[in-house]
Each structure stands twice: as structure tokens, then as C-alpha cells.
């Protein structure tokens, strides 16, 4: 169980982005988290991946409370949660070839001997061909790079996967391929999934349970600043269309 209890987090103590958010991801469960842009979903995802220390609240991994964050978190806990971010360009070190990008967590944790085997397993699983593995991030497309980022998140066999808007920048076929790769991994290992996004159609098809932001925090997400409701889409992004309700 990955449990977030009453998490308040942000970048300014005076004005936290996330207030009192709680959610639970059981083993093997897929949770979708829907919210409009700017409501704090990504911050909550970073907290769930132990990458951001919350101002208050508790994170429990299989009942074990997390006390330290980022580099200070015990390596076993940090690597138990794999993350995939929204923008593959920013989440890949521009100097590493894709094969090294995927293998980097194995190098960092001193498991070099597993590299050839794991890369050979994961590359086809996420749909990367051999010639792509020798390229650097600027030589591949966003979709190909995001596939490599997913492989990197899976290479240490995490018990949970946090996908923060993983497919927001991608076309439909790449989205389908990435979701299928995640589902194959979860079917094989029983890992939990927290998929954060604003695409309710995708999340409702993908996840066992979809939570809206107000269900997680108990408050209505604020309107995007600078974007009057009348000029944008008439419906807030997290409200499903009429037929789906």
C-alpha cells in the first residue's frame, strides 16, 4: 500500500499548493487522479515519489512511514516508486544515449551486471528498436524518448509507478503503446499505479478507480489564473462528458 495521509505541500510555506490531500494505492491497483492544470497534482505526484518533502502529512510505503526525502530517503524506499514525468525532453539527461538512460538506475545502485539483460528485456517491452538505443535524446522524437523514460522507471522493478501526465504530449498510438507497456508490467509484477492527468477518458479506461481532485483534498480546485471561465472550455477538465457520467 502506498498511502498519502493529509499531505500539505508546496514551494512556499505561506501558500502551499496542495492542502490536506489523502489517497491510497493498494498493491496491484491502478488509481487515476484527475485535476485541472495548476491544481497541484504534479506536486502531489512528486510527494508520492518521495521527491518533495511535504510541509505536513505522512507517506507510508507498505506501512513504513517515510521520514526523509529526495537524496536522504533510504535508497530502497526511493527506488520502490518509479516515476515518469510529463516532458520527456526535460526528464532525460541530454548527454546519455537511450541505452545508458535506461541503464542509469542500475549503474547508480551498483547493479551493472544486470544491465545487458534488463535493457534487452525492456527495450522491446516499451517498443524501442535496437538502433534507437544508440541515439541521444535530441536524435529521437518525444514519443520515443518517453518510451525510454518509461523503461528507465521500470528498470529497478518498482512496486509502484507514478505517471505524472505521462502521455499528455503524445499522439494516440504512442499513448496506447505506453499504457499497454505499463499494464504488461503491472500484470507481471502486481505493481500499483498512480496515474495523474487531466484526460478523464484515458484515465477512466486505464484505471480501476479515478479520483477527482476535490475527492482527494476535499476542496474545489481553483480556476486557472488568468483564464476566465467564459473564454476557456465551458466545462472544467475534470468533469466527464454527459454520456460518461
Amino acid at each position, binding site marked *: 500500500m502506498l498511502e498519502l495521509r493529509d499531505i500539505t505541500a508546496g514551494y512556499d510555506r505561506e501558500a502551499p499548493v496542495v492542502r490536506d490531500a489523502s489517497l491510497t494505492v493498494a498493491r496491484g491497483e491502478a488509481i487515476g487522479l484527475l485535476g485541472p492544470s495548476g491544481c497541484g497534482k504534479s506536486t502531489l505526484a512528486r510527494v508520492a*515519489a518521495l*521527491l518533495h518533502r511535504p510541509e505536513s502529512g505522512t507517506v507510508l510505503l507498505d506501512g513504513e512511514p517515510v521520514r526523509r526525502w*529526495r537524496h536522504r530517503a533510504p535508497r530502497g524506499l*526511493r*527506488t520502490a516508486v518509479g516515476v515518469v514525468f510529463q516532458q520527456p525532453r526535460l526528464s532525460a539527461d541530454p548527454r546519455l544515449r537511450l541505452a545508458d538512460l535506461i541503464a542509469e538506475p542500475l549503474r547508480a545502485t551498483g547493479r551493472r551486471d544486470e544491465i545487458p539483460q534488463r535493457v534487452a528485456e525492456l527495450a522491446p517491452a516499451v517498443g524501442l528498436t535496437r538502433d534507437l538505443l544508440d541515439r541521444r535524446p535530441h536524435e529521437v522524437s518525444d514519443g520515443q524518448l518517453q518510451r525510454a523514460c518509461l523503461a528507465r*522507471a521500470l*528498470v529497478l522493478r518498482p512496486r509502484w509507478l507514478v505517471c505524472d501526465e505521462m502521455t499528455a504530449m503524445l499522439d494516440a498510438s504512442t499513448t496506447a503503446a505506453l499504457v499497454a507497456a505499463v499494464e504488461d508490467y503491472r500484470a507481471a509484477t502486481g505493481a500499483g499505479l498512480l496515474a495523474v492527468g487531466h484526460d478523464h477518458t484515458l484515465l477512466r479506461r486505464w484505471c480501476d478507480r479515478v479520483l477527482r481532485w476535490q475527492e482527494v483534498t476535499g476542496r474545489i480546485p481553483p480556476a486557472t489564473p488568468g483564464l476566465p471561465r467564459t473564454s476557456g472550455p465551458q466545462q472544467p477538465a475534470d468533469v466527464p462528458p454527459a454520456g460518461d457520467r
Partner: protein
Amino acid sequence: MTCESAAEPAWRSYGVRRRSTTAVRLRVSAALVAVTVLAVLLVPPLVRLDQQTVDLGSKLLPPGWAHPFGTDDLGRDLLLRCVYGLRISLLVGVAAALVATVIGTAVGATAGALGGWVDQGVMRVVDTIASVPHLLLGIFIVAMFRPGVWPVVVSVALTHWLSTARIVRAEVLSLRSRPYIDAAVSGGASRWRVAVRHLLPAVLPRAALAAVLMVPHAMWHESALSFLGLGLPTHMASLGNLVQGGRSSLLAGQWWPTLFPGLFIIVPTLAVAGLAGAWRERIDPRRRSELML
């Protein structure tokens, strides 16, 4: 003809002219740097003349065929003296710039990567040191040692690493919050590994550029120290020593012992700066600026 050039949009001709002046500047700088380096490397082994040879019979000769730059007050050939002086100045400049860049990169990367109170503390120390005039601080440092090459290198390096530290820190701070660092942390990378594998390689081009931009600074600083008589001992005369030596004959109307060493300071340093400026425009085209020395 006039019609055509008038039809050309203004921004376009401006862009073309701008590019061509940049290219000319780059070529001239590169040629001058090449000539400097070749002269410094090849003249001493090829021309088997002793720059120290005193010939009191031909002292203070104006520039002529036998001595293109004239002779100094001991009858030594100034062209030869200038090439040897440039050799020493360049050596000190490059060595000091390298040492300063290593110190600056280490300090800046540490401050930026650790953040928090370490960063605040280190950067306040940097500000404090930077608030003392470079030359004054350099004089203090030189005065603590016997005259020689290394005290001058240390003095210049210890007064010039601050700007590199600031540049590297700012760069590391901006990189530190990128998702790829988050991904590395999540993948189990230690703080050390993040710094060495992901942050340092990203700031190295910037640090290398700072090092090249620092070479002219370091040469000027060295010349200033030598001019004040605090730099290199006179038996290994640098350009600063030569200018200082020529100063006494300046009032007597003998301009060449000051002018030529002075030109030897100015021209190669401007050439190096021009080359570094072109390089900067290449790697950072958004920050177009004139030579910021």
C-alpha cells in the same frame, strides 16, 4: 542596384552585416591567436639568439632593419624580449585561468548542488572576497611569497575564481530543479552521483568558456603585478616587466621600449577575448553582447 537594396528589408541587411562582422572578428582573432601561439612555441627553439645578450654599444636603438622593435637600455633586442615576455605572460595567464576555473567550478558546483545554508554561506564568502579590489588582494598574496612564477599564478587564480563560481552556481541551480535530476534521484542516484554524472558535465562547457575568457584578465593582472615590481623576477621578464623597464626612457623620447611590449599585452589578449566571444555567441546565441571582458 539602389532599388534592390532599398527593397531589401532593413532587418535582413542588418542581420547579414552583423553576421559578416562576427565572422571577420572571429577570423582575425583566430589568426592572431594562432600567430601568437606559433611565435611563442617556435621562436625560442628556432631562433638561437639569447634575449639576455647585453650589447652596450647598441643601446636604445630605434626600430630598424637589424632590430625591428629597437633595443632597450642594455642593447637587448626588443622583439626577442617581447616574444620571451609573451611566453611567460601567456604561461602565467593560462595556468592561472586553469587553476581559477578549477577552484571556481568546485566551489560553485558545491554551493549550487548542496543549496540551503551551505550555498548562502559560501556565496557570502565569495561576495566578501569580491568586494576587495582584485589588485590589492593580489598584491597581499604575492607579498607573502618569494618572487617567482607560482606566487603570481596563485595570486591571480585566488582573485579570479569568484566569477566562475558564480556562473557555475547559477547554472547548477537552474539544472537542479530539472525533472531529469528528479528522475536520477528516484532511480537511486546518490547526491555525489547526481553532481558528477549529471550536473558537472552540463556546466563544463560554460566553465571552459569562462576559463578562456579569463586568460586575458589573468595576463593583464600578471602584467600589472610585474609592472609594480611585485610579479615575476627580472631574469624571467614578462611583458609587465618590459613595460616597466621601458618607462624610464619614455620621457627621454624613446617610445619603443614601452610601446611594443604594451602592444604585445593588448593584441593577444584582445584576440583571445574575441575568440572566446565568438564561442560564447555560438553556444549561447540568445545572450548576444559585445565583448564583455
